[in-house]
């Protein structure tokens, strides 16, 4: 299984440990990641807020690179995923828009043809690698670890572009349980983390994150498992901010799903990766060692 690997901006800049976990587990599961030379930012919601045509053209340029490679795109970030998936859907369906975008792209020698699909890492693990193969790769299961899953909005919403492809929430929960952990129901599981308003309206972002963390705390989970780097940062660093401003403490470690799977596959996290978490994950490492 070969994919055009779209890394985006946020992961290399803020959560290289997430990238490292993916690069470590991919070959073990038969996933080959091919770098996308010259790819630009996906044009996330902040850029879509400025201008519609610029969004489609920038996202389409990335899709064209993958088309040239003859590979489906694999993204790790929900924002990249939604931007590229929406663009791919719009341009495949709407000839008029496609022609307009191709006119813009002609200047940089690209042309959107609509030959590839856009996939998220969870999608690839669940559908292409397959749940059974993931289960078989688990050597040191997290028996009974209580997990609050946070798939992030754009793994599942809006339904009209995600349904029919696959079921994001169910897929993530099945993958989490494949590692031996237990996905615990909590209030507002499908809700947003608040991250999209970070840097635009910090107060609102914090209030939304708090609603989410409150539900997790009541459910009594050991940790949070995320897919999206925005959710990761919002819930990890966000806890420190909430403690400072709203005097509420949760002490819930946050792991990327790739970290959880990597550890369950018997690979240790490196010291710099453990230190990258603002809420210490030593509690989880200890639970694992006691097993």
């Amino acid at each position, binding site marked *: 299984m070969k994919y055009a690997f779209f*890394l985006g*901006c*946020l992961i*290399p*800049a*803020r959560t*290289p440990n997430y*990238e*490292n976990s993916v*690069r470590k587990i991919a070959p073990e599961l038969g996933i080959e990641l091919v*770098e*996308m*030379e*010259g*790819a*630009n*930012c996906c*044009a*996330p*919601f*902040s*850029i*879509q*807020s*400025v*201008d*519609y*045509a*610029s969004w489609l*053209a*920038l996202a389409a*340029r990335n899709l064209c690179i993958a088309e040239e490679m003859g590979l489906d795109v694999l993204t790790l970030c929900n924002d990249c995923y939604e931007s590229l998936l929406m663009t791919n859907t719009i341009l495949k369906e709407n000839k008029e*828009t496609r022609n307009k975008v191709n006119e*813009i*792209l002609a*200047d*940089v020698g690209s042309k959107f043809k609509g030959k590839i699909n856009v996939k998220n890492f969870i999608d690839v693990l669940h559908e292409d690698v397959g749940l059974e193969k993931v289960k078989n790769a688990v050597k040191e299961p997290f028996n009974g670890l209580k997990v609050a899953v946070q798939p992030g*909005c*754009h793994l599942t*919403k*809006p*339904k*009209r572009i995600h349904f029919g492809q696959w079921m994001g929430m169910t897929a993530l929960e099945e993958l989490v349980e494949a590692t031996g952990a237990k996905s615990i129901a909590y209030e*507002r599981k*499908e*809700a*947003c983390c*608040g991250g*999209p*308003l*970070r*840097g*635009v*309206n910090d107060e*609102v972002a914090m*209030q*939304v994150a708090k*609603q989410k963390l409150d539900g997790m705390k009541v459910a009594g989970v050991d940790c949070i498992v995320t897919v999206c780097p925005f959710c990761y940062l919002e819930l990890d660093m966000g806890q420190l901010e909430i403690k400072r401003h709203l005097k509420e403490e949760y002490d819930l470690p946050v792991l990327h799903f790739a970290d959880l799977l990597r550890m369950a596959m018997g690979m240790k996290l*490196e010291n*710099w990766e453990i230190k990258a978490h603002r809420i210490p994950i030593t509690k989880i490492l200890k639970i694992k060692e006691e097993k």
Partner: protein
Amino acid sequence: MNEVANTPRGRGVLACIQCGRCTSSCLVARAVEEHNPRKLMEMIILGLRSEVIAGPLPWHCLSCFTCLDRCPQGGDVGEVVFAIRNLAVREGNIPKGILDQARSLFETGRVVTPSRTALIQREKYGLGKEPMVDVEAVQKILRKTSFDKLIYRGS
């Protein structure tokens, strides 16, 4: 209203029946009193242009797209918000956080750039060099769409 409805992401406003399901499913509406997606749609329908475009209202939305799934009419408030934001930006209403990202995109091809420490870490921990961005291609595209004029006005 037509100004919004005639944009690619603004069409949904024509389908709105003011039922309020968007507001009852909105996380921000729970936290911020003045954010009310139903009311925002009503203001567009009533043509209260300056109140909608010049104020902070379009910038409260998380784009979580819960309302897109809940709307019984395909009214897509979460999409209409982008249509309003595009109009607001053209009139100089753009939050600093978004402007910073847009300028970073134009200058580096990325909305967030890694710090020096992050780059050193990449090499040290065997992640290799950061993937190269074709900034020239990005700037060509953004000049053609006049994105640069929107983000460097008056500076």
